[in-house]
């Protein structure tokens, strides 16, 4: 149970450290509101066009979907790896089947051209 306190304590200390330093920088640094143009987004000197928080390429989204499937698999793999010494051949066959099904999905996505960046 001590582990969770270390994790929480380090997280709290880390957040405190970052805000302390940012606060110190806030005190030390000069600030200048400037004119209206200062707050414009920097896009290589060209005025921004349209809404930034709009639509973007779907290719990012598909990679995220693939990631979710395989990341859940990784969690199972870790647990399987720990108990593998007592499972041996049966464990290898069952995990092989599980991964094979996932790889069929990957092959399907590959065939559909999802893995090719557009």
């Amino acid at each position, binding site marked *: 149970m001590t582990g969770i306190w270390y994790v929480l304590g380090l997280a709290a200390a880390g957040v405190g450290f970052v805000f302390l330093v940012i606060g110190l920088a806030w005190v030390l640094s000069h600030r200048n509101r400037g004119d209206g143009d200062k707050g414009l987004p*920097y896009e290589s000197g060209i005025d921004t066009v349209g809404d930034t928080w709009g639509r973007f390429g779907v290719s990012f989204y598909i990679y*995220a979907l693939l990631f979710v499937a395989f*990341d859940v698999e990784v969690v199972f793999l870790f647990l399987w790896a720990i108990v593998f010494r007592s499972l041996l051949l049966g464990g290898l066959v069952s995990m092989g089947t599980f991964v094979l099904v996932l790889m069929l999905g990957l092959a399907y996505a590959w065939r559909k051209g999802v893995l090719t960046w557009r």
Partner: protein
Amino acid sequence: MTLAARTWGRMSLTARLTAILLPLAVLLAVGTVVGIVFILPPTMDFLGANMPLVRFVVAVVGILVLTIPTAFVLIYMELKVIARMNLRVGPNRIGPWGAAMSLFHGFKVLSKEDFAPTGADLTVFTLAPVVTFLASVMTLLVIPFAPGIFGQDLNIGVLYFFAMGGLAVLGLLMAGWASFNKYSLLGGLRSAAQIVSYEIPLTISVVGVVLLAGTMSMNGIVLSQSGSALDWFAFKQPLAVLIFFIAATAEANRTPFDMTEADSEIVAGFATEYSGMRFGFFFFAEYVNVFIISALLVTLFFGGWTAPINWPWPYNLNWLDAAGIGILWIPIALVALVVATDILGAAIWLIGGREWSAPSAFGLGLLIAGAGVTAAVGLACFIAFDWVQGIFWFFAKTYVFVFTFVWMRGTLPRVRVDQLMGFAWKWLLPASLLNLFVTAAAIIILNQPVIPR
């Protein structure tokens, strides 16, 4: 005129100094004695009674403090090493060989204007560097630096490491989204797609190590590689080392996979709109990440803090402590330093002739004597304590890989986005699964018992 003022006026300079310093010295001595007799024992008792709490505070503060010199050393290394690789001189103005450069970089970033664009989502904009920095610092908790020196030995160490390291994506995505800038958005999305893709081969390549060690605890993994260099998992999992190294480079956003900050394509990616200390924390986290990735590579595949050759140390140096001197070795070392400085300085001054002024002669004497005493004390500690050895080997191995990352940045060009993503899914993922199942099959065929730990 009072009596005191008249007395003061008649005293010489030496007498005045004595009159000021003597009471101070007496006070200091009395204070020291009172401190040692009355304050030290209860304090030690108090600390001893709360040992778990003391260890907690020391571990948390130690991990946070460790990141600062690490980042400074890495920034300086990157400037200097790449400069030498480009046949340039690199930083050479501040400190010896420009070594204080990164310290002043830190001061510069601290004093710069911390500006947010008008359209930005201020809350998310401020929280993004916090999340990124936290994601890298939290992973340091489970890395064992030496026997007995680690933050916390979680039994799910490896999984914890990847869970926390994966949060870095969130920070970069938040930064890209909150900046209200199309370059930032593209950089954030690119980093999300890239890190998420390379996370899969990275974690699967580590499963092979977990299979061999039979545990996810970092200490357990290090202990199951103890022995000589031949017991390191790098020699049982050569393919996994390669996959891990490539995927880790992509995870840390290092060249040749630094698509998220590709300055020739999207200005500075997610960091375009950041300035001042909020920008500083992104790069603080990036350099700490390079160290952490190297440290993990060393821990998982290159034996962690174990020595590459099997030697009979730590050796109990009984003959050094034959007279029961114990902790008194510290003042003895200091006295030895002073005596050696005097002898060496006098010798240099006498032999060197007119060119050597007394201060420079004694300065050189101090340098030589200091190096000698430090080497002697270091060697004695190295032989006597296993944790000194552990720290030495761990940092030596880690900085070899840190150097390799800097080296890659100095030599390799950036890859294209489509090649980057295709490589992760079409090559690294099948290769890592192949490695995993070959390892599992090998364990069944050899049916080797669990490596004793």
